[in-house]
């Protein structure tokens, strides 16, 4: 299948937008006004965008601690996200949740929590309800390679397979869980995709830094998940640029070798795609600059909005204990 120009530009723009938002968060973090942990998605934007561009508004996603890219790619409100990071009442969770609890029901962002693996069954349950209610919507559950070590991940695969649930499991394998390389946590003979298969779930490995591959493959897969009501798992190798949690680069800690870092830094999904788009004349340097400007303006306003927003009132502490 060929990708139209407008979609190519959209894919690029979405990735760029997320990157710029994340970078702005990083650069403003030292102001100590966003007083909560941040797990930035820099480097992993292609997966969020490639998958979410194939989801309808009513489709739902669940994600984990590293959720900014998913939230934004699925259409979550940037203002509400930043409001949340600033702890303001305008935040998507009114400041109560913080960066690790992004939610935007309108956009179908249904859950993000920092307990590793814990939204996988929750996403599976949403897919189950969709099936019980005979809705033709699907769920995409995003999680990291570390999350595939939690028992509940396997339990969820099992249930999704048993009941043919319409859910796409998306494993973003950035090879690290905090500072631990995957080789310290998983046997080299283990394979997430094969694990899915052994549960009776189809799977595919996709290059997590190739936006077009991701977009095209997941288009087909999502059609299948919807039409056949079957779970599917995709595993995408990718790379996290910054430290696990926080705004900085932590390459100096040396838990990732230079060779590894250099290799991956060459694979930046955005820079490479920009080259591609320029090379084949989908976008000119100028257009890209304009795009940057527009996005930056949006970001500027959103930050202003968040900064100017009010903190929540004390009464909220009691108001939301019970519905």
């Amino acid at each position, binding site marked *: 299948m060929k990708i139209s120009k407008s979609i190519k530009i959209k894919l690029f723009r979405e990735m760029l937008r997320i990157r710029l938002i994340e970078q702005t968060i990083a650069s403003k973090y030292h102001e100590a006004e966003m007083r909560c942990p941040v797990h930035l998605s820099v480097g992993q934007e292609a997966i969020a965008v490639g998958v979410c561009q194939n989801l309808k508004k009513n489709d739902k996603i669940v994600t984990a601690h590293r959720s900014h890219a998913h939230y934004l790619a699925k259409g979550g409100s940037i203002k509400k996200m930043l409001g949340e990071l600033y702890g303001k009442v305008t935040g998507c969770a009114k400041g109560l949740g913080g960066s690790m609890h992004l939610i935007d029901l309108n956009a179908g962002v249904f859950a993000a929590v920092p307990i590793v693996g814990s939204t996988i069954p929750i996403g*599976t349950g949403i897919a189950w*309800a969709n099936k019980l209610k005979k809705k033709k919507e699907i769920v995409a559950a995003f999680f990291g390679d570390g999350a595939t070590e939690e028992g509940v991940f396997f339990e969820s695969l099992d249930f999704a397979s048993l009941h043919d649930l319409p859910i796409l499991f998306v494993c973003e394998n950035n090879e690290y869980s905090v500072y631990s390389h995957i080789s310290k946590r998983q046997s080299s003979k283990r394979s997430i995709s094969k694990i899915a298969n052994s549960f009776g779930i189809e799977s595919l490995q996709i290059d997590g830094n190739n936006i077009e591959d991701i977009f095209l493959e997941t288009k087909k897969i999502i059609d299948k998940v919807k039409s056949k009501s079957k779970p599917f798992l995709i595993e995408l190798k990718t790379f996290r640029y910054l430290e696990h949690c926080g705004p900085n680069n932590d390459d100096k800690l040396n838990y990732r070798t230079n060779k590894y870092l250099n290799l991956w830094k060459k694979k930046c999904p955005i820079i490479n795609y920009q080259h591609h788009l320029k090379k084949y004349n989908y976008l000119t340097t100028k257009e890209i600059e304009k795009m940057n400007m527009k996005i930056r303006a949006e970001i500027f306003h959103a930050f202003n909005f968040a900064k100017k927003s009010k903190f929540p009132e004390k009464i909220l502490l009691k108001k939301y*204990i019970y519905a």
Partner: protein
Amino acid sequence: MLKNIKKITLAESIREALVLSMKKNDNVILVGLGVDDPKGIFGTTKDIDKIFKKERVFDFPTAENAMTGISIGASLLGMKPVIVHQRVEFSLLSLEQIINQAAKWFFMNGGTKSVPLVIRLIIGRGWGQGPQHSQSLEAIFAHIPGLKVISLSTPYNAKGLLISSIEDKNPVIIFEHRWLHEIQGEVPKKYYKIPLGKAKVVKKGTDITLVSSSYMVIECLRSAKILKSYSIDVEVVDIQSLRPLDIQTIMNSVKKTKKAIIVDNGGINFGISSEIIARLYENFSNKEKSICKIERIGPPDNPIPSTRELAKYCYPNYLDIIKKTEKLLKKKFKNLEKYKDNIPLDQPNKDFMGPF
């Protein structure tokens, strides 16, 4: 007996609550290992799978943690899952989902979505069940803001409280003592609710208050009956709701009788009775502090053994309550022995012969 009331067991009354709720609301589904099996969870779900569509009575793989997360997910789309664990111990596998997720969902998402979920936990003693099948772990759940924690004691309150729990928008934990499933009581046939968060004076009296929940309410009522023949007029309060705790009702009773025994189902250390005693004293005037006498009884502070010869020391009963009353009232009741029944401690009734 009136036409709109009938005498049924607590298991049957739970079953009625489930059936009526499922009829009223298509979104109510039953979830748990064995919900559709021939025994139907001590009879509480028996044959419900024959009344409703298969998808509404959901046998589950042995995967308690995912079962809970999946039910949370389903509840976010408007389903009302009622989970059951045949032993409270199995639910320990799912505490992450219950405590971190379900209990906090509404709060941590800024009030956008709550998790309407009911989790039935079966507690209590049994036929040599041993350390891993006979705990009563209410205190763990009662500690957590965001949960509602209910404890059933009669067929009447079982039905009304369960219906309310299913209608509630929050995660509700329900404790059912295995020894109660077979007790009988009068239950209205209709769909009725008992508000969550309220204790109940189940027997009025003036001399002493017994505060308890779940199966121990039965033992309290038994002791009240016997104490009557010694001219002691006992008031019995059924806590019913451990969280929120209706301390006011308990307080009113204790302020009236000036004497109370808090009878715990589970271990007393850092247990349910601890909180009640603390709250009572916090609310007492100085004078009340010095004249009111409060004691507590509960299982001793050890795991529950299997052998009946030692398990018998682990379940205080009506006689223990009476003895505590003697101590508290500084009385001596003669011929107490004659009130000793001979139902062994490991049988809920005389016909019961194991294995579960």
